[in-house]
């Protein structure tokens, strides 16, 4: 083997965090399962406590793991090869997220194009409609289900439109911050990053307001049939991702204030920015398919 001919590989030292993370996820799964079961049975159980303990363990794990990671990175342990690995890992992670949303978009398309139409008698399903669901009319948004649950419909004008503008703008501001970082202009970085975080928070606030409006005034709820189901599952999971993205942006902001990241080395910032663009693209698809069409 040729000595020193190539850059030496970096293999990180062993670490307790992965097993802590596994324990945390185990507690979350076990606790969440029992919480849901307790809710269904209207029983007071210990499920929620286990779930909260699991979340606490995961937070400790994230904090400790990232701390170690940042310290190692700042001490110059990492090779450029590792930087590539991280970037590719993040890209594939985002691809897996895309596929997660694809499952729910798939459910939405199937419901709109096939399930509701067939219940209304389309294709060769006339008897389904006449015998099983007489009087059911296939319309979208499905304001009255075959079982007779009524709900309102959410228009695209107003809050959803504002939110679309806000999120698209935030993708640009995030990019300006990134450009600032790459040019070594820390002021530009801080200002644009701060604006991005602010826009993310406004988006989440408006999303919350929209939910309140939908629940209290429109009667559009999670359990009001397939329209409400797809609406809340898609916007809800998207909202969770925006929340996570905003937290990541805030962490990046704090790290920027501490003087982390250089024009050549800023994987964490880049990953966060990719993630932010990803939630933005998901929103645009949501706006088109859930609200407008």
């Amino acid at each position, binding site marked *: *083997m*040729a*000595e*020193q001919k*190539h*850059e*030496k*590989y970096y*293999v*990180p*030292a*062993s670490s*307790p965090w*992965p*097993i802590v*993370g*596994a*324990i945390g*996820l*185990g507690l*979350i*799964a*076990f606790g*969440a*399962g*029992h919480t849901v*079961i307790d*809710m*269904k*049975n209207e029983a007071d159980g210990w499920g929620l406590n286990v779930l909260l303990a699991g979340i606490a363990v995961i937070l400790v794990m994230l904090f400790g793991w990232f701390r170690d990671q940042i310290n190692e990175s700042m001490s110059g342990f*990492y*090779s450029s090869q*590792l930087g*590539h*690995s*991280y970037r*590719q*890992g993040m890209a*594939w*992670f985002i691809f*897996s*997220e895309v*596929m*997660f949303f*694809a*499952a*729910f978009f*798939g*459910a939405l398309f199937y*419901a709109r194009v096939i*399930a509701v139409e067939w219940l209304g008698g389309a294709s060769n399903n006339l008897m389904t409609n006449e015998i099983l669901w007489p009087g059911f009319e296939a319309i979208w948004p*499905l304001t009255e*289900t*075959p079982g007779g*649950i009524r709900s309102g419909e959410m228009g695209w004008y107003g809050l959803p439109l504002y939110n679309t503008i806000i999120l698209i703008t935030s993708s640009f501001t995030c990019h300006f911050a990134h450009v600032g970082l790459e040019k070594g202009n820390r002021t530009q970085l801080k200002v644009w990053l701060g604006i991005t975080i602010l826009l993310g928070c406004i988006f989440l606030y408006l999303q919350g307001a929209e939910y309140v409006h939908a629940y209290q005034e429109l009667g559009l709820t*999670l359990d009001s049939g*397939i329209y*409400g*189901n797809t609406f809340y*599952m898609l916007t809800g999971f998207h909202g969770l991702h925006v929340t996570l993205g905003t937290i990541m942006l805030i962490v990046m902001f704090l790290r920027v204030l501490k003087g982390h990241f250089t024009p050549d080395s800023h994987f964490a910032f880049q990953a966060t920015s990719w993630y932010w663009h990803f939630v933005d693209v998901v929103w645009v698809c949501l706006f088109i398919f859930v609200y407008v069409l």
Partner: protein
Amino acid sequence: MSTVVGEMDHNDHHHHAPPGITRWLFTTNHKDIGTLYLWFSFIMFLVGGSMAMVIRAELFQPGLQLVEPHFFNQMTTVHGLIMVFGAVMPAFTGLANWMIPMMIGAPDMALPRMNNWSFWILPFAFAILLASLFMEGGGPAFGWTFYAPLSTTYSSDSTALFVFSVHIMGISSIMGAINVIVTIMNMRAPGMTYMKMPLFCWSWFITAFLLIAVMPVLAGAVTMVLTDKYFGTSFFDAAGGGDPVLFQHIFWFFGHPEVYIMILPAFGVVSAIIPAFARKPLFGYASMVYATAAIAGLSFLVWAHHMFTTGMPVFAELFFMYCTMLISVPTGVKVFNWVATMWRGSMTFETPMLFALAFVILFTIGGFSGLMLAITPVDFQYHDTYFVVAHFHYVLVTGAIFSIMAAAYYWLPKWTGHMYDEKLGKLHFWASLISVNVLFFPMHFAGLAGMPRRIPDYSLAFADINQIVSIGGFAFGLSQLIFLWVVIKCIKGGEKAPAKPWDGADGLEWEVPSPAPYHTFDTPPDVYDVPPEAK
């Protein structure tokens, strides 16, 4: 770029394993993690296998004698879940962990800490799944495919535990898959171009892509089951505008690529072993790569062949029928290439080769019965009978699991530094081969005669056939204990293994001593002259 970043203090423990239990808990070593995966999968294989023994014991005679029907349903369900997610997938991930870094000349996986996280999630996930069996109302009893409304309206309370344990299994698989892809894209030694990689790496590269693409879809499916059951949504309920068939579409969009996730790495293993014992390079390396990619691509277009009797427009049934049949073309290319590799080779028949040969023949039988099932009109007869059970056990047991056994025998000398006991290995092979056919072959006839699957009782007409099947089942289960014995014996001692115990074997893993050192390559080896199967 050229600075030597690896010479810092953390490099000290690169050449010896840390002592004690923390070695296994905190490890970042791909070999340790591979070992953990392999042992975990073997334990799960025995757990899932004992559930199969319960099933076969109940089916030994017509009528209900040993277990309640509800418990029988839990056994078929959890047997399937454990074998798919707990035995076959972790075994292949274990092999990937052990072998891919060595095969491409890397020191470790690209993201070693995440690698450890991926593994350690699994024991928790399966502990939760198994614990749910002991809850009031029992564990999951809706079949491993958890069709709605069985899993929503009619399932027991514990379904939420099933859902969350599948979620964390999925997280584990996705992280494992990301690690494999990134390792292969980024950690190949200089000169190890993509088309020089051993086929095992190629098949895992493609498998990892499938995993990242479909495990999130499974997560979506279980999430919808959860909200339908506990939060009042109606994704799979016509009264709310949903459709139970939607569940099947989402599930099988995951499920069909999933079956290739369990067989593509097997193709990789067999493509390594057959050339080694035929002492000839693999026939048609490039066509193997393209065939694997073609199978993976097609796997996204065939899901509804599981649903021919569910109710679909005729156009859709025909589309899925033709796409499914198309898959036999690249699969046929592979079988042809394995046979052509053996043509005029100097063959010897050590245990790995025996398992690999059995794989080629028996997997092909499973492939042919798959082709029969793909024909829509006749599938109306076969659907949900023991014919289907026979089909997927031929591809999963004599396919995937035989390849895992072959891989274990092939690489045990590299892992342990000792040769395994060839006599015991052969005994294991012949016992498994005979019993597995006694177990699964008669199921074809039972199915064609109309015996339905997943039912604890059956018509008297099937009594003889089920007795034979059950005897085969018990024998196959017991035969696997021989394997456990062989492995333990091999770890404890035995004839010292040379760096390359198989003279026809090729690839970087045979250039390092046996057992492979704790960290294989500190700096990348040059690979300009080692085109493994591409010579």
